[in-house]
């Protein structure tokens, strides 16, 4: 028998190896199936609904006809304003936690709280939004109130993703700055931010765009059931795709089947476009960096 021949033990290990590979592969496929089914159904049933008219006309005839224009515009408004609100807030908080805060029990407690906040159900945020923005700050039901509610809801993930980008900048750079007499802010401004800002922004855009489909946080704070005009300022109410989908699928009789599928497909399209854009941007920037 040659010394390089497989032994009984080798054979047994090889069989096990094959088994586990099949098992894990199978699980993965199982996982992909629902996603594929959903996307395929949406495209098959909603695809025929899509057209210029669908995107650029308002719903009509008790929302059983027409398109999604005001809801599409409203969703973009809400997400854009939410972004504008959460970027400075989230980045400032992450900067404080990552660059200034001493490493003590209080900081660790705050970090823990932030992570846990990400798990708060969106309906709780919605009610908070009603209390804080609609009533207390008197913004009324408006884009502003809805966007701020969304912003608060996404802040935890924004802070976490920003902190990750900040912490990807090697510590040695900060020490080099400090050892030359730079203040924390000078180190942040000259070295930390320039090397992380693109990662921060793409991360934030990614996180906030994921809220495109949120319904609960906006339905009490700014999104309207039916409002066939475009909003003119952040103090107006507006329609939004997510709520519109909910309404025409469950609240309005006589809606033809292709309509909700078309809305769902549009909603998914926006998320996919925003996500892939920011992922591609991030990959591009990572590739460019060299230290």
């Amino acid at each position, binding site marked *: 028998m040659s010394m390089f021949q497989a032994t009984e033990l080798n054979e047994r290990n090889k069989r096990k190896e094959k088994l586990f590979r099949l098992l894990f592969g199978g699980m993965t496929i199982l996982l992909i199936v629902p996603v594929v089914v959903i996307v395929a159904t949406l495209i098959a049933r909603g695809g025929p609904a899509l057209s210029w008219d669908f995107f650029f006309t308002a719903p009509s005839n008790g929302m059983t006809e027409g398109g999604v224009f005001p809801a599409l515009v409203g969703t973009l408004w809400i997400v854009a304003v939410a972004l504008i609100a959460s970027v400075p807030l989230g980045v400032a908080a992450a900067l404080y936690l990552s660059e200034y805060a001493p490493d003590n029990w209080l900081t660790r407690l705050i970090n823990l709280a932030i992570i846990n906040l990400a798990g708060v159900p969106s309906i709780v945020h919605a009610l908070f939004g009603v209390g804080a923005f609609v009533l207390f700050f008197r913004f009324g039901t408006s884009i502003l109130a809805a966007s701020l509610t969304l912003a608060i809801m996404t802040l935890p993930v924004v802070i976490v993703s920003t902190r990750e980008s900040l912490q990807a900048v090697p510590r040695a*750079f900060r020490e080099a700055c*400090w*050892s*030359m*007499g*730079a203040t924390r802010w000078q180190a942040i401004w000259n070295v930390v931010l320039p090397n992380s800002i693109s990662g921060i922004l793409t991360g934030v855009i990614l996180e906030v765009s994921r809220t495109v489909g949120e319904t609960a946080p906006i339905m009490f704070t700014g999104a309207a059931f039916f409002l066939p005009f475009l909003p003119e300022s952040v103090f107006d109410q507006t329609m939004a795709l997510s709520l519109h989908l909910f309404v025409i699928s469950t609240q309005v009789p006589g809606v033809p089947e292709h309509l909700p599928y078309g809305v769902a497909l549009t909603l998914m399209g926006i998320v996919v476009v925003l996500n892939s854009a920011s992922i591609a941007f991030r990959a591009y920037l990572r590739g460019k960096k060299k*230290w």
Partner: protein
Amino acid sequence: MAELADYAIQSRDLNLWYGDFQALFDVNLAIRRGIITAMIGPSGCGKSTFLRSVNRITERLGYVRTTGSIDVLGQDITAEVVELTQVRKHVGMVFQRPNPLPLSIRKNILFAYDLHHAERPSAAQRDEIVEKALRQVLLWDQVKDDLDGKATTLSLEAQQKLCIARLLPVKPTVLLMDEPCSALDPEATAAVEELIWDLRGEYTILIVTHNMAQARRASDECIFMLMGKVLEHSETAEMFVNPAKKETADYIEGRYG
């Protein structure tokens, strides 16, 4: 006894704790101005800790406590009124791993200068500052055509020279170097050593090294530390030929590791 300001660094009864762990014990050192002093001793004996205390970068860690004082050019840098950024301007630090900033070569050189000068000099003056610093570290000819190139893509040797060069425009008194050659190959080490020797006189240099040959070759005085205490401080030639303590002899001959 020499005049006070003959000493660039003078520590008095310096004790330092990391939490409950005491890293320095009653360190009394008087380091003469304008020469190169080498600091040797086994790993973990507190060499870096002492160096970092002179730049006051240790206290960034919340759990560090010190007693005693350190004078730089006769002035107490541990006093309440002392401005940290001024200490760091006068006491420059070179690290074990070259750590140029991820900026252009030019911006690396001007970084400390800009931190410490409220007014921006003219473009011509800035070019002059950059050229002078790079010439002082013998890097000018190598990088003069690529001043806007990224500093982090230079060779390690050039990076370490750049890290020395970026300290010079603010005219520091003391240069602290923590094993500046340990990341370099022998040839680069020789080049950087030569450069350090060139800077002698203009600056007071305190250099930590693991390399006995380097300490012997490239220093005027030598300090031997063991377990957080200074055991011996004498002229380098004297220490290597005729060490006063048995521990020193053992270490120099490689019996400590």
